[in-house]
């Protein structure tokens, strides 16, 4: 059969008579695969162990975030944003809140902004620890994974102290946060950050000089800066290729313009640089949290406007005006002016943007989430083209595709 086919298309004489007929093998990696965090399928075409073609299929976790948001009041969207990038829910909370506040044209009191920066940076650290630990595990380093997860747990304790939940935070509100930090928070934060830093050091000691780890990471998954930009890739992936684009530095929001931090960049744009950039960002985040703890002023965390942020219980139960405001807010929601805004924040994996269209009612007419995972996953096929099958795992790990955010 195979001989006949080859004779027909006239290639037989070009091929060495001793060479076996080539037919690419199709391998379906996922949607449920131990190395596919979340559910995603990669259809690979293989020549031996070399990838000659691939198609990445996303959408297994599509829950209709945008449709759901369009039928919710503005304040009801927060729990859904928690479930976008579930490794760093606070950043999604903050990004959405900033977009709505931009629509209203309000700004949160100083202390509220500091609290939000702390929340974002703790969340970024948990995101990076998850990514680094999972990457190590999927390359066979189970021990290193446990160190990363232990460090993440320390930081989850911090989130727990902040909002009472470790993963599904729902902490930020339009015009503030659900409640202020407790008086013992700074001491707890310093203790937990010190523990996490120690574990981070151990994690690096275990991995960075390990020949097996280096073999899998150095020089794999490379893509140049121009191509990454054309793909719309942002975050640690782009910075590892030497482009210092970070929303926190380029277009500062909250109080990032007052914090002293570096934007770490890589040189080669390979998986190893992506790992190193994330490691360095962990240190920068800890540095920012420390500055916030030291520089945070006293005062309110919420805007003093009963039409946007509901007043405290003591005011609602004792005063007529506030009671009415509370009732109207809960039933009808806050009503922004007609218009449309786009607000970007630096998420765990890159630029996280919310595009809101308001028709003046209490529900967003359109609530679009520009998710970094979606844009970052797109060039995966390009990164693994012509490479070995084993390179899929570290490359996919460093892309850190989060199903909830990619598929929304």
């Amino acid at each position, binding site marked *: 059969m195979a001989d006949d086919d080859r004779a027909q298309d006239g290639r037989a004489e070009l091929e060495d008579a001793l060479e076996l007929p080539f037919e690419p093998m199709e391998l379906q990696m996922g949607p449920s695969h131990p190395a596919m965090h979340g559910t995603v399928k990669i259809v690979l075409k293989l020549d031996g162990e070399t990838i000659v073609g691939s198609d990445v299929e996303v959408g297994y976790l599509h829950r209709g975030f945008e449709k759901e948001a369009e039928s919710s009041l503005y304040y009801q969207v927060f729990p859904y944003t928690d479930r976008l990038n579930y490794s760093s829910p606070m950043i999604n909370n903050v990004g959405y809140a900033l977009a709505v506040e931009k629509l209203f044209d309000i700004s949160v009191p100083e202390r509220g902004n500091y609290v939000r920066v702390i929340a974002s940076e703790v969340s970024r650290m948990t995101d990076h620890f998850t990514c680094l630990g999972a990457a190590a595990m999927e390359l066979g380093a189970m021990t290193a994974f446990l160190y990363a997860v232990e460090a993440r747990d320390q930081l989850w304790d911090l989130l727990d102290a902040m909002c009472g939940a470790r993963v599904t935070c729902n902490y930020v509100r339009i015009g503030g946060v659900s409640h202020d930090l407790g008086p013992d928070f700074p001491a707890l934060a310093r203790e937990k950050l010190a523990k996490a830093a120690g574990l981070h050091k151990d994690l690096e000691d275990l991995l960075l000089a390990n020949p097996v780890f280096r073999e899998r990471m150095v020089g794999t998954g490379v893509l140049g800066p121009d191509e990454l930009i054309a793909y*719309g890739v942002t975050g640690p992936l782009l910075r590892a290729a030497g482009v210092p684009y970070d929303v926190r530095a380029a277009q500062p929001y909250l109080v990032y313009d007052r914090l002293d931090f570096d934007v770490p960049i890589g040189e080669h744009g390979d998986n190893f640089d992506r790992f190193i950039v994330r490691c360095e960002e962990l240190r920068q985040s800890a540095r920012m949290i420390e500055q916030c703890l030291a520089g945070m002023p006293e005062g309110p965390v919420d805007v003093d406007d009963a039409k946007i942020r509901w007043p405290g219980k003591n005011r609602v139960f004792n005063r007529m005006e506030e009671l009415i405001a509370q009732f109207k807010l809960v039933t009808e929601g806050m009503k922004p002016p007609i218009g449309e805004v786009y607000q970007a924040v630096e998420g765990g994996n890159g630029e996280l943007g919310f595009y809101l269209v308001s028709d*003046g*009612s209490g529900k967003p007419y359109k609530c679009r989430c520009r998710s970094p995972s979606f844009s970052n996953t797109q060039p995966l096929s390009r990164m693994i083209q012509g490479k070995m099958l084993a390179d899929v795992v570290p490359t996919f790990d460093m892309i850190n595709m989060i199903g909830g955010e990619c598929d929304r």
Partner: protein
Amino acid sequence: MSDSKAPETSTPESAAEEQSEAASHPVLAALAARFPGAVVSSQCFRGDATAIVKSDSLKEVCAFLRDDPELAFDMLLDVTAVDYLGRAPRFEVVYHLYSVKKNHRLRLKVALEEKDLRVPSLTPLWVGANWLERETYDMYGVQFEGHPDLRRIYLYEEFQGHPLRKDYPKERRQPLIGPGSSRPAATRRQAATSGEE
């Protein structure tokens, strides 16, 4: 969502202010000077620059935005659409551009009639447009002409309709398999035995 009315673009009193702000915005000014016929209108709201351009000149405008050294919009961040059901034209395709070199942003919009829901694909200019346009096609049914591989990205091929359209009820379910599936049981059995996906 049937009770919600299509929103106006801006209230009359703020429109004049937005127009004057738009005239002084460097990117919008450059765009208006270069393509006086293609830019239908431009405005600034809360510091976001927006230009509405004609569908047939979209590619030309985008090529200029990308290649002009002063503008240098090297990154296409996002493509989406908005369904203004009950308004003519019904749809708007929305592009968010960013320049890594110049650190500025721009929102481009193209208004489309429901019966002529076509817009040129931007994949030749930004390779990243591929998935973003597939998503917009999946969710709104916008046809991107010249797209190399325009198929659904999140939903399955058999899905009927486009779920983010305002006339698609939120409660409507279309399971691919099991009770309530639109595919008759006989077809499913046949597909299973013949090895078809």
